[in-house]
């Protein structure tokens, strides 16, 4: 019962995040109004520093349960914690110059709290911890989605996000309670064993699995729990939408992965089938609906849904290769989608519109921004030498490896549909003309920095494969 320093090491990133939150809170109080924008710099820089300082906190090769079994200190959790911190830092950069967003200390604080939630979510090894972490992630995000209280769409986004999130989390929680009851323990690494000993019929397990899955599907916006996401993404402040669609979704994926693999090893056949069906439905529906969108944020929302479908392939195949491919996919997806939303944010900040028409002739207004958008969208479409290609490659490889070639085929057909609408956007950007061509799109410095980092990142992930792959494999290996 004695606290010692080594116990804090595994939660060092979270502690640092709390400290950063405190700094932000204080700054929000003491800084004069005009300088509130600089809290963004502090947040972004703080995230960078946390990334560096967290290096000693990296787990041993052998995963261990810490803090009374609340957390599992393993590479999966640690990796994604790092990714979320990265994502939050980038989001701060994008948000800085947003009116009514960037100068609000609360924004950064809420984002930090949400990040803490995600960080704990992906490491949680206990139902109590998991539920709490999920809610800690979600509740600040509800507010962030509705942050523009004078904007009809934003408030509506917060409203819908909240209602739907609260409902699905309640259903999930019911599932948790059943699992707790059946197993007599809240530690997810013991549930499987004790359920097996208790002689619980598979049917009961499947039932609770389905209930839990509802909550997770909501997090990853998987069909049929996807339909909140276009509305929410469209309505939310764009940097928030980017954060929502990447970090929050990735966290959901990690939890889904860990939970399914660890808690339900005895019914893999059943949940494999469910996830497979969900994967197919998600990517197909997401892509088909994305085709007709006129608003770029909505389009990206549907495309995010589709991407969740691809990533689900990695879960559905239930194999080591599958898990690492999914992790790789999420890394790529996080960086890429952040870039896409970030560019949309930078653009929308000036044009004041997220309709496709605002993108007409963009390459003449701002060639570099257009190029960055090209990189981001093509990476989403799965084109080399960008990260998206490698990610899709691994995911499809996992499907083929698992002898689910039909799934890979559906995946590639979907990739083609995806190709179509991404290219359509690029067509607007490069081909169409607009009346505002003479007006360049001024990208602010923090945005430039963020976009550059992300674009370079996309290319690096797509070309220098070894570190990322090893990372993904290590992370994936630590699930089991």
């Amino acid at each position: 019962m004695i606290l010692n320093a080594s116990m804090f090491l595994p939660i060092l990133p979270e502690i640092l995040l709390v400290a950063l939150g405190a700094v932000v809170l204080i700054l929000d109080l003491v800084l004069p109004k005009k300088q509130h924008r600089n809290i963004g710099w502090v947040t972004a820089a703080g995230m960078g520093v946390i990334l560096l300082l967290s290096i000693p906190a990296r787990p041993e090769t052998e995963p261990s349960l810490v803090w009374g079994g609340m957390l599992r200190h393993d590479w999966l959790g640690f990796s994604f914690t790092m990714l979320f911190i990265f994502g939050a830092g980038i989001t701060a950069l994008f948000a800085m110059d947003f009116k009514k967003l960037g100068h609000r200390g609360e924004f950064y604080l809420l984002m930090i709290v949400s990040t803490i939630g995600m960080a704990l979510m992906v490491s949680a090894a206990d139902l109590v911890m998991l539920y709490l972490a999920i809610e800690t992630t979600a509740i600040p995000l509800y507010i962030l989605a509705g942050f523009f209280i004078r904007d009809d769409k934003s408030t509506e986004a917060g409203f819908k996000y909240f209602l739907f999130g609260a409902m699905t989390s309640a259903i999930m929680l019911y599932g948790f309670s059943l699992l707790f009851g059946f197993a007599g323990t809240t530690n997810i690494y013991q549930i499987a064993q004790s359920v097996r000993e208790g002689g619980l019929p598979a049917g009961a397990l499947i039932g609770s699995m389905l209930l839990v899955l509802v909550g997770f599907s909501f997090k990853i916006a998987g069909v049929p729990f996807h339909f909140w996401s276009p509305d929410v993404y469209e309505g939310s402040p764009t940097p928030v939408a980017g954060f929502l669609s990447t970090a929050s979704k990735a966290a959901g994926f990690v939890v889904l992965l860990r939970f399914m693999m660890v808690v339900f090893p005895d019914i893999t056949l059943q949940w494999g089938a469910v996830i497979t069906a969900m994967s197919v439905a998600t990517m197909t529906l997401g892509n088909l609906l994305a085709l007709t969108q006129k608003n770029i944020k909505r389009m990206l929302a549907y495309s995010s849904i589709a991407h969740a479908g691809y990533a689900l392939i990695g879960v559905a195949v239930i194999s080591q290769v599958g898990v690492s491919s999914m992790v790789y996919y999420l890394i790529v997806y996080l960086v890429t989608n952040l870039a896409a939303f970030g560019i949309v944010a930078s653009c929308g900040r000036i044009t004041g519109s997220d309709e496709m028409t605002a993108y007409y002739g963009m390459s003449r207004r701002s060639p570099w921004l257009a190029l960055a958008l090209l990189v981001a969208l093509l990476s989403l479409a799965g084109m080399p030498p960008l990260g998206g290609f490698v990610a899709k490659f691994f995911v499809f490889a996992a499907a083929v490896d698992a002898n689910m070639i039909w799934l890979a085929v559906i995946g590639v057909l979907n990739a083609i549909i995806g190709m179509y609408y991404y290219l359509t956007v690029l067509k607007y950007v490069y081909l169409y003309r607009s009346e505002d061509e003479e007006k360049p799109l001024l990208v602010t410095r923090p945005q430039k920095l963020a976009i550059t980092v992300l674009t370079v990142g996309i290319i690096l992930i797509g070309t220098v494969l070894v570190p990322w792959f090893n990372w993904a494999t290590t992370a994936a290996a630590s699930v089991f």
Partner: protein
Amino acid sequence: MQFPILTFIVFTPMAAGLLILLIPGERKREVRVAALAAGIIALVLTVWLYFSYDVAAGGYQFVENYPWLPALGISYQVGVDGMNTPLVLLTGVVMFTGVLISWNIDDRPREFFFFLFLLATGVFGVFVALDLFMLIFFYEIAVFPMYLLIAIWGWKVTREYAAMKLTLYLFIGSVIALIGILAMYFASGLGTFNMLALEGAGFSTTFQKIWFPFVFFGFAVLGGIFPFHNWSPDGHVAAPTAVSMFHAGVLMKLGAFAALRVGIMLMPEGAKFHMPWIILLTLVNVVYGAFIASVQSDFKYVIGFSSVSHMGLVLMGFATLNRDGFLGAGVQMFSHGVMTALFFAVVGLVYDQVHTREIPSLGGLSKVMPLVAVAFIVGGLVSMGMPGFSGFIAEFPIFMGLWRDNPLIAIIAAISIVITASYIFRIVGQVFFGKIPDKFKDHVHDIKAFDKIALVFLSIILIIVGIYPSILVPLVDSGVNNVLRLLGGA
């Protein structure tokens, strides 16, 4: 450690493209000069490569091998043999001439050359790849800039439609092939994407029979195989000149080459099983393509469909699965590449002057642009397989290959030669001879010096190969040996 020439070739265009991006967009002249410099460097490197390939030794040369992702057996491995060395040269040639022809592009030349060079890097990468992952990686790099190049700088009327159609067709093909590649990877159990290793993987006959069509057709879509050729004429027509040159000249070879490398060479049993019916498709390509070309009235569509016909010959050569067929196909890839680049250059130059491509409305252009007329005639003669030009060198062995097992197909396919001759002569007559219509009289001028260099350069290559095939053929032959070895000396 030898000079890593292949790596240099692959990445020269990319590096140049990135450098060009750094030039401010309004300094168009500097952009062009930089592009030309890159084109020249690439050309020099490829020529050097071509002539330093040791034909007597054969096999893969200039091999470089660096691990890329060792955990999955992915490596950056490049090397050339007799089959792809000419194609690398071809790419260098087309890149160089493409830059020359594109000198007049005025709308965002910086982006244009960047995308064009990105495309070139992809093409080079595929041609020299000895690793399946690398191959598909560069294959897709070669596909997508096409969309932008066509959509942005293409012919206003059809560019959006054509660009999308093309990209989707090719993308579908490539991802289907990708699935096949993955299946091969896992079925081999070797844990490597190295093609040389996979050659000895010994896939079961059943596996090959199932997967060969995926891989072959996946790539052959880009080769324009019937009935998946539809994208090609539309794409050609809509593309700007240099892109058409690249597209028909090099990209279609990319498809055929990949179909050979991955499909036939890695799954020879599958090839033997399926080729008897695939050859019928290629026959449709050859004859139907020529026929459709002959009834077009749009100059560029004629050339577009003639490419379908000629690429049909390449695939037909593959489908014979014998030495002569492969030899001819190998030569035809090079010959058709240069020829069609020449054709599209001509069409582009004509269009630049008269702003129409309707054949009946043209006439008498040989008086203002004699060199263009000559170049077109040279290209035309090549395309009809006229002896003395490279086309003959290429087509003759293909037909010989056909004779060995499919005499009837040889006879039917030969009809295309006459059809080709008929439309080529018709076009020559209508476009370049006769009276110049009054409406063109004043504003039609001769072409610029750069364009002339490009045309002459391409024409000379065609003639040299035609009269002195030894410059190319032994090389291809040594590559064919490589293929035949895998086919069991068939």
